[in-house]
């Protein structure tokens, strides 16, 4: 006996209803429209109200102020900047200062965080207790306190420039910061850079060759001496043939401060130290959780092949742990970037300090400046998480996950 197969009922209308109205159907659609209308109305009211209020108080508005002369100096500028530049340039200077402290902080925090996290899992009793103690101490103290501690501790113990601690009479550490010889490019600088690039590319090729040998023939080649030789040897040959690529301007004490050389200001040092050690404590916990999430059979299997603990971690455990580590790690990177705005407490000229601080109080353009600043922090965060998502996607692909 055969069953008549009926044509399925047209599902178009129910589908549409579900699509636009969710579970509640058509009434859900009405609610959604009403909600959107309410949002639009509130938005309109906010804008209209702000405009009316600003006009009533005769506060100038718009973005024209960005072209005005700033008239104040900034202690650290990565691009040429002087008092006669515009507020727009102040914005760029502040943004670069925020980015440099964030990027360097993230690099240090990642390296240190991984070391501490793996150290905590180490069978070495002392190392694991030390790592654990570090994590517990650092993550339980407020960040602002730690920034002030580093800043005031660094400053209070350092001598003034006239009695600065010097290394070979070329590097000087004082309460004005760390002064180092400033490199000045010479004619052979171009070839020198090219030699380094060639050495890096050659080392990478060597590495992929070694990998192929490992995967295809099971041969483990020791390539690091060759890579190191290339990286040091090639630039060295260029130096010997064409002369030194850079000469150094040696700083000298003149008047109150050092003249010549490059200087890393103590505010930068304190902020980077505080941000990276603080974030490293959180990263260490994330790494620990990630490694522990990998089945311990993986570790045992690696050991039974005769691989050392370090090799097993590097080649087998950490790559699998990265899938768990990556999302919370991204959050820590975002936190570090946003926390850099605490810089204002120690006079480091980051975006929040020079733009949302000084520029705001001089121009009074609160709405415009706060809007720009919020937009910039949002953009930095979105870019960071996009980069990390891409990296995560690549890891998943390499591990063969879908």
């Amino acid at each position, binding site marked *: 006996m055969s069953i008549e197969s009926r044509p399925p009922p047209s599902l178009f209308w129910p589908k549409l209803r579900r699509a636009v109205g969710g579970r509640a159907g058509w009434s859900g659609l009405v609610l959604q429209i009403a909600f959107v209308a309410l949002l639009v109305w509130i938005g309109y009211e906010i804008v209209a109200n702000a405009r009316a209020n*600003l006009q009533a108080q005769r506060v100038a508005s718009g973005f024209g102020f960005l072209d005005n002369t700033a008239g104040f*100096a*900034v202690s650290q500028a990565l691009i040429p900047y002087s*008092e006669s530049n515009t507020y727009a340039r102040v914005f760029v200077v502040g943004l670069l200062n925020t980015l440099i402290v964030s990027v360097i902080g993230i690099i240090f925090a990642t390296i240190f965080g991984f070391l501490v996290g793996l150290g905590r899992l180490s069978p070495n009793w002392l190392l694991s207790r030390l790592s654990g103690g570090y994590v517990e101490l650092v993550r339980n103290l407020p960040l602002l306190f730690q920034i002030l501690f580093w800043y005031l501790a660094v400053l209070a113990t350092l001598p003034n420039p006239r009695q600065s601690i010097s290394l070979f009479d070329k590097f000087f550490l004082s309460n004005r910061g760390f002064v180092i010889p400033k490199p000045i490019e010479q004619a052979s600088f171009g070839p020198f850079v090219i030699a380094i690039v060639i050495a890096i590319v050659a080392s990478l090729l060597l590495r992929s060759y070694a990998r192929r040998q490992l995967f295809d023939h099971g041969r483990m080649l020791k390539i690091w001496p060759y890579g190191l030789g290339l990286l040091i040897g090639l630039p060295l040959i260029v130096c010997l043939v064409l002369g030194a690529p850079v000469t150094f301007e040696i700083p000298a004490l003149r008047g109150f401060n050092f003249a010549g050389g490059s200087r890393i200001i103590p505010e930068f040092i304190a902020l980077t130290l505080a941000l990276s050690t603080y974030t490293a404590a959180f990263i260490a916990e994330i790494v620990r959780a990630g490694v522990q999430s990998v089945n311990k059979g993986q570790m045992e299997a690696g050991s039974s092949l005769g691989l050392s603990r370090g090799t097993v971690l590097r080649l087998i455990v950490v790559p699998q742990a990265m899938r768990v580590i990556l999302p919370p790690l991204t959050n820590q990177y975002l936190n570090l970037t946003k926390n850099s705005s605490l810089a*204002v407490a120690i006079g480091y000229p980051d975006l929040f300090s020079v733009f949302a601080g*000084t520029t705001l*109080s001089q121009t009074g353009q*609160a709405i415009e400046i706060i809007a720009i600043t919020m937009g910039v922090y949002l953009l930095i965060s979105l870019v960071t998480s996009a980069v990390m998502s891409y990296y995560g996607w690549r890891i998943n692909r390499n591990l063969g996950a879908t």
Partner: protein
Amino acid sequence: MKRLAILSAMVLIAGASTQAANAQTLKTVKDRGILSCGVSQGLPGFSSPDDKGNWTGLDVDVCRAIAAAVFNDPTKVKFVPLSAKDRFTALQSGEIDVLSRNSTWTLSRDTSLGLNYTGVTYYDGQGFLVRKSLKVNSALELNSASVCVQTGTTNEQNVADYFKANNMKYEIIAFGTADETVKAYEAGRCDVFTSDVSQLYAERLKVANPADHGVLPEVISKEPLGPVVRHGDDQWFDIVKWTLFAMVNAEELGITQKNVDEMAKSDKPELKRVFGTDGNLGETLGLTKDWVSRIIKAVGNYGETFDRNVGAGSKLQIARGLNKLWNQGGIQYAPPIR
């Protein structure tokens, strides 16, 4: 600080409280029953809280005088401590009714910030504080020095102008609050601390050995300091302005906290107008006829509050200088009450 700036911007956007505060500040203040007055975060002589939380100082007395004129009670003031960076936003957004916080009167602040300066409580100028051990005798010897300054102040721009005009190099380090600036100066982060001279004397009291630090002779700018209100409320503008003028006029007329009751009985025509026994000058301001005696009973005349807070009768021991009355060699001058 950060939160305050964002909050203020939001309040400015939402505007609900601004609109109410905008037109009728007097009514808002009376309905609230307390005056909200923005002051510094602690500057001895101008506005600082003691260990019991009572605020004193020259700027504080202006707030008390306004409260006395409005409520007949100088204690009805809520003091809102503000950093230099946040002070104007707090006023614009309606968080405070008046800003009495050693703020310099400049054209841009008076116009594009949407504010009105009501007068000058203290004629000041910018100077430099240095360690005596540096053996510097003039600001012109400061080439290549590191300079600590409070961010968002006119000082930050003046120092840039001064070093540029004299062809000197310098490094500026700008901090969010006065306390942070002094700490960094004391820790040796900078050679010089620059600010208004009155403030240098006040902040010097905070370092470990005040005698080891001295103010250089150069005064590099004009810094007229005075109370500020929002644009758009002329009545409130008048009240704050004339409270200050009443204090200066009282000194000129010899009215003091002690003799105010006696003087009020005088039948001199000038005093009768001031005390409201003739005419209704106080009522045209939106206050009561006895507004002047209320103010003087609460804080005394301008000279009295100057002496008590920053002058001879205080720890700061600042000479009256420019702040003497116009008929005694200074430039303090108030329009007549008539």
